[in-house]
């Protein structure tokens, strides 16, 4: 009897149809999501000022971008605010995740929910409530208020990333450290934190990206000296579309994608 070769990998016809439909649908969704962005990036190389019809290829808008002082100033502001917010978010997120994981609190569930609310709350609600709060407490708007606002909605992301990592952590590690004579604080610092490092970095990258992109909350909590880049772009876009904005968006997209990919890679490494 001849030995029949194994059937080809393709599933039987009915499922094949389903497969192709899925591929088609996914393609449509991806095109819908990414075609506008692709057009945006392509048109950042268009030499026409009105940017409606393709004229010629040029890099000049990227050059003009770096000479435009309001954009450079607000970029500097955004970077400073994002960096400081990320640092605070990491501190709050990591320690918060550890405390919730390690110790038992009566209202742990409630605390967990409350902390995750800024992640889903509409930004305009957060922005207005923060403005009302700062007015009530007589704090002037400026760098401190923006950093407080950004830290508030960034640290839940760090906390969730670290909590996921903590689930897979061997409790014996901390016990062993305590057995060997470390105080709980030292045990946390010297043993747990190094294990959490990938999750912390992944959360930090997420926080940084979110802070850089934030517009609505920034509008309500900044003053002119701490104006952020998204606010400047929004102001410029209201007046009329400018190919410089295309160039800026292209740079932003590339940087954000790189950050997210890196963060995702780290998360995968840490979940092992």
């Amino acid at each position, binding site marked *: 009897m001849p030995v029949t070769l194994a059937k080809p990998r393709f599933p039987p016809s009915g499922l094949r149809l389903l497969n192709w439909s899925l591929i088609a649908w996914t393609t449509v969704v991806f095109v819908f999501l990414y075609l506008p962005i692709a057009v945006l990036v392509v048109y950042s190389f268009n030499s026409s000022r009105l940017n409606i019809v393709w004229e010629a290829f040029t890099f000049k808008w990227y050059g003009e971008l770096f000479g435009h002082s309001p954009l450079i100033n607000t970029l500097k502001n955004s970077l400073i605010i994002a960096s*400081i917010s990320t640092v605070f978010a990491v501190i709050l997120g990591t320690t918060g995740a550890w405390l919730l994981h390690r110790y038992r609190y009566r209202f742990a569930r409630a605390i967990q929910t409350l902390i995750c609310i800024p992640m889903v709350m509409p930004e305009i609600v957060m922005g207005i409530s923060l403005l009302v709060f700062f007015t009530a407490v007589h704090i002037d708007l400026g760098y401190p208020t923006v950093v407080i606002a950004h830290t508030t909605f960034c640290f839940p992301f760090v906390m969730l990333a670290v909590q996921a990592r903590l689930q897979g952590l061997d409790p014996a590690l901390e016990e062993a450290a305590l057995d060997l004579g470390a105080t709980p604080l030292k045990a946390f*610092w010297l043993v747990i934190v190094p294990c959490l490092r990938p999750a912390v970095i992944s959360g930090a990258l997420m926080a940084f990206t979110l802070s850089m992109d934030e517009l609505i909350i920034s509008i309500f909590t900044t*003053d*002119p*000296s701490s104006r952020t880049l998204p606010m400047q772009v929004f102001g410029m876009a209201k*007046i009329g579309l400018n190919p410089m904005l295309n160039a800026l968006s292209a740079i932003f997209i590339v940087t954000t994608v790189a950050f997210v990919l890196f963060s995702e890679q780290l998360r995968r490494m840490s979940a092992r």
Partner: protein
Amino acid sequence: MQKTIRLLLALGLAALCAASLSAQSKRLNFYGWSEYIPQAVLDGFTKETGIRVNYETFSSGEEMLAKLLSGRARYDVIQPNDYIAEALIKAGQLQALDTSKLTNLGNILPEFTGMPHDVENAFTVPYMVGTVGIVVNTEKVTEPVTGYADLFSGKYAGRIVVLDDGRELATAALYTLGKDLNDFSPANLEAVRPILAAWFKQIKLFDSDSPKTALIGGDVDLGLVWGGEAAILWDQDKKFQYVLPKEGAHLFVDLLAIPKRARNVENAHLFINYLLRPDVSKLISDSFPYTNPNGAARKLLTEAQLANPASYPKTEMKLDTFRHLGGDTGARIDKLITDLKNAN
């Protein structure tokens, strides 16, 4: 790891402190209209004095008023328009100007001093003056358009852009009723409602920031716009004709003022004095061709600029300015406009 984190924290705190404390005295927080001051003027000020200008923008007087009164942001120089400034002065929100520091104040033409919103010129300095009128793309629109009746006759439905300014639109409707431009009694407001409702059905676009964009692009053929926008259109192509509506038109005066809670009052006076210089004022006129109240600057303008019918309209009509409406009239106008916009 411990040391690096400590270092990062220290750097972070240092950056925070440095950013908020340093250059406090070398900064100026300027809150003005979007697209009303050229970047070259701001850069020139920074180059001369070393003071960095942080420029924040708003699109309507009411937006500025709300942010100034309710927020904790401290602006050094603001750009209110006439009736908003009147409200601010009445509410005690503006500082009296130190005229000894404003050496260029004499450049302002006498017809723009002693205006009703600030009779003694104690709190405000005129920045730019203008009108609101109808601009027509005469290539697409061949019949003459002389006023609101022609504009909203129904022939041009879906081809009109108007300012996104409730008070301007309500005043336009008041003019068609023949009423005084500041008479917003409840009866008048109710009379205005059906007129505006009919108009809104014909309007394609509301835009206060840059109505000229839609006109240049050909999205719309007519507009009720700021005079300066119409002037820019005229410079670009003479097919864009500007006309003051025959039912009535008003003058608006945009001003510079210093809020009560300003931090850098010294820098604010330097900035205002700088803007009153004829060469600087000319630069502003070059980019934003409104009616320049600065007599010394007008001498530096070209013939073509002074002949622009949208910048310096020649008319026998009496052009009044808006006055502050007390009580909740402003809120009622706003509610009316919002209701009508939502109804469509």
